[in-house]
């Protein structure tokens, strides 16, 4: 039983990292129906910026983290301005490819810094160890992940359901021209979405950095883990991102816990989420909370 609980708890913790990453992903999709394949790169940029500030400039990790959040938000904002804005009105495949190209560009740029290869780790900024509840242990960086996720969930949940600007963002996703006719600045909405996505990406970068150190390919890989989470939750649902992320985290852990011994070589956690993804797509094409495409003829 403790075995199961331990799997569950750490599944939730890992899941909330996915959830955090998924949040940023969903933000962009929600506003502009764009799937951002560069999300993993933003995560990396956030993490490395914090590292550079903390180590090269000797800032406290907290302050460095804060600045990194803002810088990455700015980066999100700028990429929208420079790369995505000209793509308005182009087919989806082109927009997807722009984000793929963007991922490659950011990768290249990171390689021109000392962070291209190698492993780095933040100076200690959280207390050693963690808390243990009835034999189940959770470390402080993991708690930080859960905290960040909860914070952003509440923030964005409120924003999209209650604030006028949030509703306007959803309106833009639905029908840009109509939104413009009502005075919504589509450009501002997109830029805002990308900035917010940058912010959450940096938050996930910080958390991942704190938990398992910084390595370019490991950080960017999280950008892929986001997909099962958002498909399960529904591409355009904030709550879905969080629930989807956590479910995927838990399922992964349960797979690793209960399936691995039966599969030669194990490693089922790497594939299990994607199998789940396909199943979800088949049985619930719009995920748990995603809005169904309204198609009337």
């Amino acid at each position: 039983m403790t075995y199961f609980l331990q799997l569950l708890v750490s599944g939730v913790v890992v899941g909330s990292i996915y959830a955090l990453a998924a949040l940023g992903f969903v933000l962009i999709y929600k506003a502009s129906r764009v799937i951002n394949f560069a999300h993993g790169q933003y995560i990396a940029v956030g993490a490395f910026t914090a590292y550079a500030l903390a180590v090269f400039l000797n800032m406290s990790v907290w302050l460095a983290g804060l600045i990194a959040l803002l810088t990455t938000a700015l980066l999100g904002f700028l990429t929208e301005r420079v790369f995505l804005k000209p793509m308005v009105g182009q087919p989806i495949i082109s927009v997807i490819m722009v984000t793929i190209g963007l991922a490659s560009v950011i990768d290249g740029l990171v390689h021109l810094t000392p962070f291209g290869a190698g492993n780095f780790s933040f100076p200690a900024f959280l207390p050693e160890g963690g808390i243990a509840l009835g034999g189940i242990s959770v470390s402080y960086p993991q708690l930080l992940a859960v905290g960040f996720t909860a914070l952003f969930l509440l923030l964005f949940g409120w924003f999209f359901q209650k604030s006028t600007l949030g509703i306007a963002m959803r309106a833009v996703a639905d029908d840009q021209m109509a939104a413009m006719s009502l005075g919504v600045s589509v450009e501002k909405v997109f830029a805002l979405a990308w900035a917010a996505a940058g912010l959450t990406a940096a938050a996930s970068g910080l958390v991942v950095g704190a938990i398992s150190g910084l390595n370019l390919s490991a950080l960017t890989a999280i950008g892929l883990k986001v997909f099962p989470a958002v498909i399960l939750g529904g591409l355009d649902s904030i709550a879905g991102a969080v629930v989807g992320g956590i479910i995927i985290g838990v399922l992964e852990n349960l797979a690793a816990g209960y399936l691995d011994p039966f599969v030669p070589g194990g490693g089922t956690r790497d594939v299990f989420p994607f199998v789940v993804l396909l199943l979800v797509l088949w049985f619930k094409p719009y995920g748990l909370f995603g809005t169904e495409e309204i198609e009337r003829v």
Partner: protein
Amino acid sequence: QTVNLMWSGAITGPTSDAGAPYAAGVEDYCRYANETNAVPGVTFNCIVRDDQYNNANTQRNFEEAIDLEVPIFLGYSTGGTLQLKPLVQEVGVPVVPASMHIGNIDPPNNDYIFLPTTSYSEQVIALLEFIAKESPGAKVALVVHPSAFGRAPIEDARRAAEELGIEIVEVQETGANLDYTAMLTRFAERGVQYVVHQNVAGPVAQILKDSKRLGLNLKHAGAHYTGGEDLLRLAGDAADGFLWATSFYLWNEDAPGIRLQRELGERYGRSEDIIRSVNYTNGMMAAGIAIEAVRIAKEKFGEVNAETVYQALMEMNWDSGFGVGPVTYGPDDHTGVDHLRVLQAKDGAFQPISEPFTSALFRKVHFQQ
């Protein structure tokens, strides 16, 4: 006379944390060789290529190298080297990969491939021997990278465990994950005492940290690419007690190769991280083997080509100063440094806890000798 040399490996992409310092090692040693005129009358033109861990790139690079008439080629990944084997056999150009996969030098098509040091298999078996000595009948789990590289020692390890009377409870493949609770708690439940890794440093560090956080009574050990400064830096004090098998001297030891490495690293402006990296040493040795072979070929046959360099390798016995034993090759011996040591992490540094030795058990289980 200008001799072209080429290294093709992953400076970016998967395993680049090892590949990047390795490349630096190759590059710097080459430069040093030219500056010191290591082979009289020969200047080396060293080309360092990033193949992004992509075999098509490796192959293209290799073929270009052949067109450039390199007498010896420095390779990298397990996959890339295995793929090249038939071609290498056909063109007869010696290849020294960074991968220490025993399959590289197993038949067929193995005549021209030379490992710089002991194989992963031998390293893992050496660790198993160590474990068997420490706690006879121990239960062991093997955690490996999900690739040909990671899977390399599994078969030999199973046979060795049988010989040693220890039990391999599980073999798990794992890349970078954020959390290893499931795997580790299960190991603990199944009575595993030792976890032996064949992986890169990142995942191992994460496993060590999780293992410590969960308060599990597991001891960890790993082959060449699991250890080194990276592991210490990433895992912090969770690395304490980690057992590591490698054929190289460490950056803080007083060995001739290491002195050279420090000096070159500083001279060529390498960061401290690179200078301390065992893969920097590794790259230097690979370049060293190539250049030494060219030297012998030039001295002995007066001309440098694939054939003469191959002949040179066949009789090489070079004390590089980088490895814990001399680099020796022969018709039946395609591993360079035949010795290795077991080291243990303690207070942020690895300390040798054995003398250099070769594993007879490995030879027995693998070559049926």
